[in-house]
């Protein structure tokens, strides 16, 4: 027995106090290796473990939950073209009644997920617009009708067909007119079919209706040349271009074609020192105006007078007839001088739908010898064929009861015609009203029958946008719902007993195939047509028709009155795609506003009226819109975008903005966007606008670097002095210099080519599953789009120069974001890409703070399957548009541009499979693929012969914020304006 010693008196006292006897303080007797319990026969630790093992096992067995069973059933017979995981591309055509574009439809596992430009098309030349890019989402629109409707209730095709046929027959018997109102049709086969339909029902009157017609131009050409056509313009052949309220780079007529043409004359590659010059006279600040070398502000009522002044100045110098013109302040001497110098290589266009104006434009162009050079009257453009008088007649026969029925195809006049209320009232009386709308739009809602048309991606069609240029639409997916193509409806009502697909093929076999000599058999020809998506029949060279002069006159400009200039937004267009969340959330390239239309006023004018941004103004004492102060807007005018204020668009588009179609100017006979006189009244209300950019000047920082042509010729590095400084500066880094073996991916953006059209932005959104966040979130500065087109004004003066600059992740080799991530979610690939591992990201957002370009986006909320964000990612249908190659990001992670890493990988694998080296140009990023001005080049920076290296190999190249030594892989080329210094 061991003795126990107390260590101190305190211990002893303590032991005593507790009544601890000396014995108790002794350790117990023990047998080595045995627990006390084992000796005493109680349950031991071992027993405990046994018990626990058993109970855990039992509990696990009993309560193990069953995972939901998901079955992946392989295809028994794989369709010939379908390999899971491999994309198929089908050539097709986008035409929505306003805009034409030849496209490639990318499908994955048989569903269209992306629209690409078709490089075989001589018209759109691989370019698309934002609206074309976004159109794929319309296919998966929840608002689409799921089948034929009768009085707002789902019906079936058989009975509805019978009833309509019966009604058509009765109306024919009663000799009542039936109006077939369509948008401008550019499909020769459809036009032929309508002809047959009219033959079967002679009481049917077909008319084409455009919400934004160009009838004045057709009329003017009829007067001057005897041809009521819209000519084909060749901006690429013009050295001097003058636009009058024509936003030809943004929305006017064929923006894709014109942007391509325009950019050709502005490229400064390979030592090129010539550059075309653009003058723009306009009321609103349009995208084209923002790209002009010289921009003049005119009021709508001044346009004719300015044009006539220009004509007179030119006529005086060339010895032609001078017409009396009201005086205007605008100075046209410089324009006139330039135009004369570039005679035969000049082009004047006006987007105003006014006969007088178009006559003056024709006179100027004729005087300059533009016809046959920059304007081709022999290749008429088939867009915008609607003539105002037809619509007026139709209106009167609907109102008078002369018409007994009306069929609407691809038009929505109850929403977008000037007297929509009258039309809506008159429609009620008609016995037969049929709409072919794909959604229950404003017009369809008033119809008895809706025979929903297929989406264009489910349809067969052809198109002839300009004489001789043909284009084909082929389905990329079977109709998702019980819908039927408009043409098939007509065919079934005429009792032709065949599908439009056969009809189309037959038409081409009999009417077009014989015209060509390349293909011997029709099958091969037809296959080629479908494969290429386009076919061109060369027409013999013809003399341009002779110009017959007309008397020119111009009304006196109005003084004092506030003139309204309505305009078409790139995103909203005429309002057809209002339910498309991508387009609603696309920032306007000029105002950077999303989700609304608003009243634009110049800063001085706003000040004089005591108005500030977001103040609500009452227009003509009824319509209320918020103010957006727009530098560059003509003093005394206000601008409002059309295409908003839909009431029957769907969950996304309903109630966004206000409808202003009724404010169109009809005083000149033709529907004109410009010139309505309005009154403005300030209210005490304010209305928040969701702008993506709130600071508009560069604060003297070398962000967009620019020079003028004269300086550029002297020194190609003009305006890029900062880059010189950077190269000379000493650079030191703690980190080892990045080295790459085979690839270092880079992008070069030519700021001189970029017009800011924002096509890339939507293309990127579609490619990379970028979420739509809604107006409230945009206003809070949380837009998700990976590309941001920054817009700067030279200074907040009344006539600023405008700069557009697409900014996305710069893929810095010395990335400030990468080294601050605590969890190493950011890494640099050995191909120079800065990568985010979404799974690893915990969302500290340090990288976002440290990114000087602010190119990173955070998932502030769960944007998928969340009713608060009820856009395409919250519906099973809408989610079909998602690209399976790109992860859909969870809430709480940071994301950003990846340089389309999935595309890089795809092409690398393809090259590997084909056992060859990757070629320059194999990989096209989404933004680059459909850029209408080829401003974006992607490629391997290590390959000195790649396009991107070559375009970087100029004095114009610089990196954004290069003084930070972030070493971006993305470079910019300086902007050069063709201005006098």
């Amino acid at each position: 027995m061991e003795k126990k010693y107390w260590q101190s008196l305190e211990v002893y006292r303590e032991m005593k106090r507790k009544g601890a006897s000396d014995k108790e303080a002794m350790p117990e007797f023990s047998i080595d290796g045995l627990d006390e319990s084992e000796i005493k026969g109680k349950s031991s630790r071992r027993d405990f473990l046994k018990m626990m093992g058993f109970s855990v096992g039992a509990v696990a067995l009993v309560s193990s939950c069953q995972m939901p069973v998901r079955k992946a059933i392989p295809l028994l017979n794989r369709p010939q073209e379908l390999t899971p995981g491999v994309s198929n591309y089908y050539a097709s055509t986008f035409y929505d009644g306003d805009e034409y574009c030849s496209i490639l439809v990318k499908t994955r596992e048989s569903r269209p997920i992306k629209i690409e430009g078709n490089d075989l098309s001589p018209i759109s030349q691989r370019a698309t617009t934002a609206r074309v890019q976004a159109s794929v989402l319309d296919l998966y629109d929840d608002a689409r009708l799921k089948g034929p409707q009768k009085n707002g209730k789902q019906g079936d095709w058989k009975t509805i067909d019978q009833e309509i046929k019966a009604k058509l027959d009765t109306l024919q018997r009663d000799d009542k007119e039936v109006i077939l109102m369509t948008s401008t049709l550019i499909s020769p086969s459809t036009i032929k079919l309508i002809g047959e339909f009219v033959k079967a029902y002679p009481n049917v009157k077909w008319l084409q209706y455009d919400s934004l017609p160009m009838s004045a131009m057709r009329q003017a050409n009829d007067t001057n040349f005897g041809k009521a056509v819209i000519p084909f313009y060749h901006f690429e052949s013009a050295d001097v271009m003058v636009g009058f309220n024509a936003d030809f780079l943004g929305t006017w007529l064929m923006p894709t074609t014109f942007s391509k043409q325009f950019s050709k004359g502005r490229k400064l590659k390979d030592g090129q020192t010539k550059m075309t010059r653009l003058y723009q006279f306009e009321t609103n600040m349009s995208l084209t105006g923002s790209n002009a070398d010289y921009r003049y502000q005119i009021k709508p009522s001044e346009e004719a007078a300015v044009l006539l002044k220009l004509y007179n100045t030119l006529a005086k110098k060339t010895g032609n007839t001078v017409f009396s013109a009201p005086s205007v302040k605008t100075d046209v001497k410089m324009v006139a001088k330039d135009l004369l110098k570039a005679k035969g290589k000049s082009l004047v266009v006006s987007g105003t739908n006014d006969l007088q104006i178009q006559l003056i434009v024709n006179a100027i162009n004729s005087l300059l010898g533009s016809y046959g050079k920059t304007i081709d009257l022999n290749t008429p453009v088939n867009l915008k064929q609607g003539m105002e008088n037809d619509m007026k007649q139709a209106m009167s026969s609907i109102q008078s009861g002369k018409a007994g029925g009306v069929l609407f195809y691809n038009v929505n006049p109850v929403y977008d015609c000037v007297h929509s209320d009258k039309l809506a009232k008159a429609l009620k009386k008609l016995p037969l009203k049929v709409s072919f709308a794909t959604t229950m739009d404003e017009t369809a809602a008033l119809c008895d029958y809706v025979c929903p048309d297929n989406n264009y991606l489910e349809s067969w069609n052809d198109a002839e946008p300009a004489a001789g240029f043909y284009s084909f639409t082929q389905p990329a997916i079977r109709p998702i719902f019980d819908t039927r193509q408009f043409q098939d409806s007509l065919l079934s009502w005429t009792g032709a007993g065949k599908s439009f697909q056969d009809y189309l093929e037959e038409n081409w076999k009999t009417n077009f195939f014989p015209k060509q000599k390349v293909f011997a058999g029709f099958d091969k020809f037809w296959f080629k047509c479908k494969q290429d998506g386009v076919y061109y029949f060369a027409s013999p060279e013809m003399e341009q028709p002779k110009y017959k002069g007309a008397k020119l006159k111009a009304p006196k400009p109005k003084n004092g009155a506030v003139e309204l200039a309505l305009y078409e937004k790139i995103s909203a267009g005429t309002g057809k795609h209002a339910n498309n969340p991508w387009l609603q959330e696309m920032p306007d390239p000029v105002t950077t506003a999303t989700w609304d239309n608003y009243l634009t006023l110049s800063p001085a004018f706003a000040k004089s009226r005591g108005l500030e941004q977001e103040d609500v103004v009452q227009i003509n004492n009824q319509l209320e819109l918020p103010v957006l102060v727009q530098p560059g807007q003509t003093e005394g005018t206000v601008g409002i975008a059309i295409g908003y204020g839909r009431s029957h668009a769907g969950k996304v588009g309903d109630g966004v903005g206000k409808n202003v179609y009724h404010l169109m100017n009809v005083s000149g006979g033709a529907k004109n966007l410009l010139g309505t006189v309005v009154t403005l009244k300030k209210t005490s209300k304010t209305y928040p606008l969701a702008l993506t950019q709130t600071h508009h000047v560069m604060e003297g920082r070398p962000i967009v670097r620019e020079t003028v042509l004269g300086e550029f010729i002297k020194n190609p590095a003009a305006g890029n002095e900062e880059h010189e400084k950077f190269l000379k500066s000493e650079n030191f880094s703690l980190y080892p210099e990045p080295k790459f073996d085979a690839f270092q991916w880079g992008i070069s953006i030519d700021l001189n080519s970029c017009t800011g059209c924002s096509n890339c932005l939507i293309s990127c959104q579609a490619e990379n599953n970028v979420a739509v966040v809604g107006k409230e979130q945009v206003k809070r500065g949380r837009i998700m789009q990976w590309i941001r087109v920054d817009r700067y004004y030279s200074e907040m003066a009344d006539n600023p120069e405008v700069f557009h600059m697409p900014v996305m992740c710069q893929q810095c080799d010395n990335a400030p974001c990468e080294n601050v991530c605590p969890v190493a979610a950011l890494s640099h690939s050995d191909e120079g890409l800065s990568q985010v591992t979404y799974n690893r990201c915990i969302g500290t957002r340090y990288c976002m703070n440290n990114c000087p370009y602010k190119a990173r986006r955070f998932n502030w909320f769960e944007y998928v399957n969340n009713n608060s964000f009820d856009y395409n990612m919250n519906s099973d249908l809408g989610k079909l548009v998602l690209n399976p190659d790109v992860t859909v990001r969870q809430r709480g992670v940071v994301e950003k541009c990846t340089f389309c890493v999935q595309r890089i990988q795809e092409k690398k694998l393809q090259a590997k499979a084909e056992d060859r080296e990757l070629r320059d140009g194999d990989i096209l990023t989404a933004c680059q693929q459909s850029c209408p001005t080829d401003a974006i080049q992607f490629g391997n920076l290590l390959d000195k012969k790649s396009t991107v290296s070559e375009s970087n190999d100029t004095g114009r190249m610089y990196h954004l914020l290069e003084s930070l030594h972030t070493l971006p892989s993305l470079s910019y080329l300086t902007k050069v304006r063709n201005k006098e210094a």
Partner: protein
Amino acid sequence: MYNIKARGVLIEGNKGYHDITRDITNPLLSKTTPSWWWVAAFIATSMLIWGVWGFYNTIAVGTGTWGLNNSVSWGWAIINFVWWIGIGHAGTAFSIFLLVLHQKWRTSINRAAEAMTIFAVMAAGMFPLIHMGRIWDGFYVFPYPNTRGPLWVNFNSPLFWDVTAISTYLTASFLFWYVGMMPDFASIRERTVSKIKKKIYGILSFGWLGSARGWLRFETAALLMGGLTAPLVVSVHSIVAMDFAAGIVPGWHSTIFPPFFVVGAIFSGFAMVLTMMIIVRKVYKYEEYVTQRHLDAIARVLTFVSLIMGVAYISEIFISWYSDSPYEMYVFFKNRAIGDYAFEFWAMITCNAIIPQLFWFKKIRTNITMVFIISIFINIGMWFERFVIVVTSLSKTWLPSTWHAYTPTVTEVAIYVGTLGFFVLGILLFLRFLPMMAVSELKGVLKETSLITENTNNHE
């Protein structure tokens, strides 16, 4: 040796050793909890509950419930984090720095200051957590063996340094605080009549007997821990400063930040101690322990630190001009001095660099109400300082197209108020259940710093 004639008495009221024990432990032993305590606890709990709602809202809905945006990705949460960490410097600064400097007056304050540290650091620690976009994956920030490679953390990231520094600091401060309380727990164990209390305090006291040997060990442990913790006072806030200084954001990227932050932390910590002690001495009637002289000493320290703050502000502004960088200059001269956030900037300057200078006047220094008001001003000023650093810098960085303003939302306010509630509740519980002054240490300094009369009962 402490010169009573020159520096005055530290413990007033002719206290004997027993008086001290009685005064400090009686509130803990009393069965009735004072009504003011219940009122305060109710308010603090309500605040805390609101904060819990803020937490819940953030976790359930998303970080989007805050006012942050793509440009200003850090806001109130980070401001409050730095603010709390700053306050959390008081305890260690008191215990360690003043110990090293042989400042005996610290004895009646250091325990409470240490408790404040614990709760402040805990409050601060909540912010980096709730700030994460995916809090459920937050454990990724710890370097632990895993099956993902193993995938380690990024040792280059100041945020990782933060994790290390703060968890170390919290652990060390807690141990220091706890070990310091052990003799006092034993005293309570001895004095209490409640069996439950006896049990609990007995466990907490770790079997403290008060033996000479125990005291020897205790002193050694305290000294060792103090020595180990001392560098943390400097390192923690230096590292927090590096969250900013290592970034390239204009207004953040500054070599002055680590010392500037440490000084700021001590400044705010001392101010918070002042705020708290003025209240505590009033409600517990401890005017004899926390005397006018104590407050005066703290006020003097604050005056001096305030001068350093002023110098730091001025040198920051000077360097931004001297750098000749338009980005830096914009932040200081445009955005801060005359821009959208001018109010916050000037509030910071006024509260931190100007108002504390009033302490030069003895009249103000000895007027408890004024001292209290000024301490509140410093607390507010230091909050604004963090606001100015975080928000004004981020709102207007390199590219003007990305400039965006920031306003907090209800959720962010709720979380902040919640941490205030947590802190106050923590302090209240501390006051109710733990000895708020180091009884043994007070006794230790009693003899040489007070005028003890002979008839004082010196036994226990």
